[in-house]
C-alpha cells in the first residue's frame, strides 16, 4: 500500500505506479441469469426503489442544492411548532402569534405533502414516458439503496456505539459503564431534562438533530468534536478526579499486586526446583536462600515452593501523527504501567501500577523473594487508538504501543 505521498513523488520517475482496486466495475449482464419472475418483481418495484433512494438521499443531505432539504427541515420545524408551542407559559403568547404559528404549521404540512405527492406523480409520468429501465439499472439502484442503508446503519448503530468502550482497560464494555450510558440516553434522565426544558423545545431538538444527523457536516462535526480529550473523557466518564481510587494512590504497589494475583501462582516441589533456583544466583543470594531454608527447619522436603510470575504492561500513546511517543495516556484507558488483574467472573481488568523500576526497588512482603535479578522485557507491540493490535512495526495507523515486563517471585 502506497500511502506516503512523498515517497511516491520521489520514485515516480523510475518506478511503476500500481492502481487502486475498483469495487464497482462493470458487472455481467443479469438478463441471462435472472429468473423472469424476479425481473418482473424488480421492474414493478422500480418506482418505489427510486422514491426510497431519493428519500435516503434527502436524509443524508446528498443533494448539491442544500437549500431544498433546509426548506423541508424548516417546514418540519414549523409543523412541530404548531403542535407544541415553545413557551410553557401559555398566557404570555399573543393570540396573533399563536394563529400565525398554527397557520404556518398548516401551510408547511400542506407544502410537504404536496411536494411529496408532486414528486411521486412527476416521477411516475416521467417513468411512463421514458424507456423502461434495464435490469442492470435496477440492480445498480438496488445497490445504491443498500449502500445508503448500510451507511445509515453504521452511523446509527447506537447499541454498538454504546458498547464501543473498549479502551484497553477491559476486554468488554463493563456493565457499569453500559448502564451509565443507557441511563444518560434512557428515560429517567430524559424525564428530568423535560422538567427543565419545554416539551416543544425537547421534541424540536431531537427531531431536528435526527434529520441532520446523517449529513456529512454533522458527521464531520462529531468526528471533530471527538478529537477533544474533554469530550472523550465525558463519553467514557473517565475523568480522573471522579475516581476515589485515583486519589488514594498512583498505582498498585507490590503488596497489592501479590495479594491480587496470588491465585495464579503455581506450587512446585521444592526439592526439584531448588537446584534450578540456586543455579542462577550469585554467592550472596545463594547463602541467603540457604539461610532462609534453614530457618524453616521442619521437614522442608515436603514443602512446596510457591512461584508467581508478574507481567507488567508498559503502555505509550502517540498524541499527534508525526510526533514522538508519550508516556501520557488518556485517563480512562490503561495507564503507563499497568497490570492485568483477573476478576471473579473470569474477565480481566487492566489496573495501573507503579513503574517496573519502582516495583523492583520496593521491599517485598513476608517470605517473597525475586527469582530473576531483573525484569525481562519483550519488544513493542503497536496498536491503534483503541488498543487493537496492528503489528510489530510502527505505522501511520498505530497510535498506541505496549510491551511486557516479566519477573518471577517465589514464596517459601
Amino acid at each position, binding site marked *: 500500500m502506497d500511502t506516503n505521498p512523498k515517497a511516491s513523488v520521489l520514485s515516480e520517475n523510475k518506478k511503476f505506479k500500481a492502481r487502486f482496486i475498483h469495487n464497482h466495475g462493470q458487472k455481467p449482464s443479469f438478463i441471462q441469469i435472472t429468473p423472469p419472475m424476479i425481473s418482473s418483481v424488480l421492474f414493478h418495484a422500480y418506482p418505489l426503489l*427510486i422514491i426510497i433512494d*431519493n428519500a435516503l438521499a434527502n436524509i443524508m443531505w446528498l443533494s*448539491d442544492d442544500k*437549500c*431544498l432539504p433546509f*426548506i423541508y427541515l*424548516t417546514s418540519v420545524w414549523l409543523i412541530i411548532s404548531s403542535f407544541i408551542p415553545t413557551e410553557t407559559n401559555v398566557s404570555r403568547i399573543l393570540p396573533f402569534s399563536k394563529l400565525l404559528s398554527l397557520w404556518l404549521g398548516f401551510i408547511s404540512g400542506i407544502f410537504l405533502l404536496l*411536494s411529496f405527492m408532486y414528486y411521486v406523480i412527476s416521477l411516475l409520468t416521467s417513468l411512463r414516458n421514458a424507456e423502461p429501465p434495464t435490469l442492470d439499472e435496477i440492480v445498480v439502484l438496488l445497490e445504491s439503496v443498500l449502500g445508503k442503508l*448500510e451507511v445509515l446503519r453504521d452511523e446509527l448503530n447506537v447499541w454498538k456505539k454504546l458498547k464501543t468502550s473498549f479502551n484497553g482497560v477491559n476486554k468488554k464494555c463493563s456493565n457499569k459503564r453500559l448502564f451509565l450510558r443507557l441511563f444518560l440516553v434512557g428515560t429517567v434522565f430524559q424525564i428530568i431534562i423535560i422538567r427543565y426544558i419545554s416539551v416543544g423545545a425537547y421534541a424540536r431538538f431531537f427531531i431536528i438533530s435526527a434529520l441532520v444527523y446523517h449529513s456529512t457536516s454533522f458527521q464531520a462535526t462529531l468526528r*471533530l468534536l471527538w478529537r477533544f480529550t474533554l469530550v472523550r473523557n465525558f463519553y467514557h466518564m473517565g475523568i480522573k478526579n471522579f475516581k476515589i481510587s485515583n486519589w488514594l494512590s498512583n498505582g498498585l504497589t507490590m503488596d497489592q499486586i501479590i495479594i491480587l494475583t496470588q491465585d495464579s501462582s503455581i506450587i512446585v516441589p521444592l526439592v526439584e526446583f531448588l537446584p534450578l533456583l540456586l543455579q542462577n544466583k550469585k554467592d550472596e543470594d545463594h547463602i541467603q536462600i540457604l539461610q532462609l531454608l534453614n530457618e524453616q527447619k521442619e521437614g522442608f522436603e515436603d514443602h512446596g515452593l510457591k512461584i508467581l510470575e508478574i507481567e507488567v504492561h508498559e503502555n505509550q500513546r502517540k498524541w499527534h501523527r508525526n510526533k514522538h511517543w508519550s508516556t501520557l495516556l488518556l485517563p480512562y484507558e490503561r495507564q503507563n504501567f499497568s497490570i492485568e488483574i483477573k476478576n471473579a467472573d473470569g474477565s480481566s481488568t487492566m489496573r495501573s501500577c507503579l513503574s517496573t523500576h519502582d516495583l523492583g526497588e520496593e521491599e517485598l512482603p513476608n517470605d517473597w523473594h525475586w527469582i530473576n535479578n531483573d525484569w525481562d522485557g519483550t519488544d513493542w507491540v503497536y496498536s491503534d487508538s483503541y488498543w487493537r493490535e496492528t503489528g510489530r512495526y510502527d505505522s501511520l495507523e498505530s497510535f498506541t504501543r505496549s510491551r511486557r515486563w516479566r519477573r518471577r517471585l517465589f514464596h517459601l
Partner: protein
Amino acid sequence: MSESSTSRRNTSRDAVKSYFAGKYNKVLDSILEAEAAISRSPNVAEDLLESSASGNSEMSQASLAASSATNQGISKKELLQQIAGSLLSTSIERLKTTQSPDASSMLEYSEDAPYEEQECGDCDGPFKCPVHLGQAAAYYDDDIDAEPALEATTSNTERDPFIDVFLDKLISRLVPEKLPEREHFSSNATIEHDLDTGRVPVFSATVLGSNFKKLSKKMGSIFELQDSIVRLLTWRNPTGTVTSLIIFTLICFNPMYLVILPIFRFIYGIVVPGYIRRHPLQRSIYPLKRNHGSSLLYDVCYEGKNEYTYGQQFFSKSFMDTLESRNQEKDEISELDKRPENTQELKHGMKVLINLRDMQDMTSGTLHVIDTINNFLRKASSFQNEGHSTKRFFAGFLLIAVLKILSPFVNWSYTFSISAWCLLIYMHPKAHPKIIKFFQKGKVEKEYKNLKRKENQTYNMIFDEKPEIKYIEIFEIYKKGLLPNDWKFFKLSSSIFDPLDSYRRAQQFPPGVDSLQDVIPPPGWIFDPNFEWKIDADVERWVTERGLNLPTTDDFLLDPMFKRRRLIHRVIKSSKQVT
C-alpha cells in the same frame, strides 16, 4: 511549452504590438511636443494646475505666448486629455497582455532609470536634452519597424517600463510634488502646514496601473457575490431565495443570528469541507445515471420549463467528490494537471477581462446611481416647482411625525420578515404580472378619483409669500463741456468714476451703457413694473456712505471734470431658479 503555442503567442503579440505602436506614435509625439512647450515656459505647469482645478479654459497671457511660440496651438485642455489618454491606454495595455513584464525586467529598468539621470545632470529630466529625445525616438522607431532580428518579447518587456517611467516623469513634473490629502479639500485648513511633515503620497501611473491590475484579479469574488445576490432576488435560484428569506426571518426575530450565521458559514462552508477533503468519511454511495421526477418548488418557480431535475440536482460535482470512486480518478487528474498551462493561462486572462468589464459596469452603474440621487435631491430641495417641493416637505414631515408616534407599537420582527417575504413574492417573475393585474383592476375608477383629488389638491396649498425686494443703483455721469455750465451726458455706469476711481486713473472708460433701456437687473431679479427710475435726491447720504469728499449741487456730485447723480430702481426677486 510546445513550439506551436509559442509561435501562436508570438503572432498574437506582434499584432497587439503593432496596434499599440500605432496608437502610441501619436500620443508620444504629442507628449514630446507638449514637453518641449512646457520646458520653454517656466510657469506653464502652475497654469495647467490652475486651469485643471477651476475648469476654466481661458488661457493666461503667459501660456498663450508660449503656445503661440511653438506654433502647435496645443491648449492645456488638449494636453491634459492626451496625458490622461496615454495613461489609460498604458494601463489597459498592461492588463491586456497578461504576461506582464516579470519582476526581474522591472527591476533592471528601475536600476537603469537613476543611472540615466546621473548621466545627464545638466538637463532637468532624462528627456529634456536633445540627446535623450533622440534616444527616445530611436527607442520608439525600433518598435514601429519591428525588425525581425529584434525579439518580440524583449521589445515588449522593455517598452512597458519605458512608457511607465516616461509617464511618471512627465506627470511628476506637471503635478506638484506633494499632493495635499483629501481631507484638506473639505476643510479649509492651510495645506502648507501638513506638507512640511513630508509623509505625503505621490501620484504614480505605474502604481496606479499595477494596483488596478491586482484589483481586477481580486474583484472576482465580489462580483460573484453580487451576481449571486442578483440571482437570489430574481428567483433564478428559488430554493436559495426561500432559504435566504427564512434566514432573514430568523435574523429579524433574533439579531444574534447576525453573528451566529457568519460563524456557522465559516465552520460549515470552509472548515468542515476542508476536514472532509483531508479525512473523507468512509461512505460508499453509488451514483445513478438516470433520475426521474422533479421537485414541486422548482417546477413552481420555473414556469413549466423545468431547468432543474433531480438528476441535475443530485450527483453533481460536489456530490461526486464524496464518492468512493473518486479515488480511481485521482491518477488521471494528476496527469491532467501536468499539462502545459495553456488553458489555465487563457482562462486566467479571460477572467481578468471579465472582471475588468464588470468593474467598468460597476463604475458606470455607480455613476448612474449617484447622478440619480443628485437629481432627486436637487429637484426636491430647489423649490423650482414650488408645489412639488412643498408637497415633498409636507409628506416628509408627516411621515416623521407618524413614524415616531407609531414606532413603539410596531413589532419589528414581524414587520421586517413579512415585508421581506411580500417583497420577494412580488418580485417573483411568475407572480409579478398577476399581482400587478390584480391591483390594476379598478384602474379606470381610480384614475377618475385621482383627477378629482388633484383638482382639490390645487386648492390645498397657497403660495403667497411676500417676494424679496431690493433697490438697485446706477450712476448717470455727465462730462464737463467747454462752457462752465455745459454738461454733456457721458455714460450710465455702476461705478462712480470719481478722481480716485481705478478706471479713471487708468484713463479708460468706465463699464456702462448709454441708454436706460439697456440697464438690466441682476440675474434672478426683475424690475418692479410699478416703479420707475428715480433720481436719488438725498445726495449727501450716499456720498458720505462712500466717504467721498467732493462738493454737491442739487442731485449731483461734482468734481472738476465729471458730475454724476444716482438713479435707483426697485427690483423683485423672481421665483425662477438661477442656473
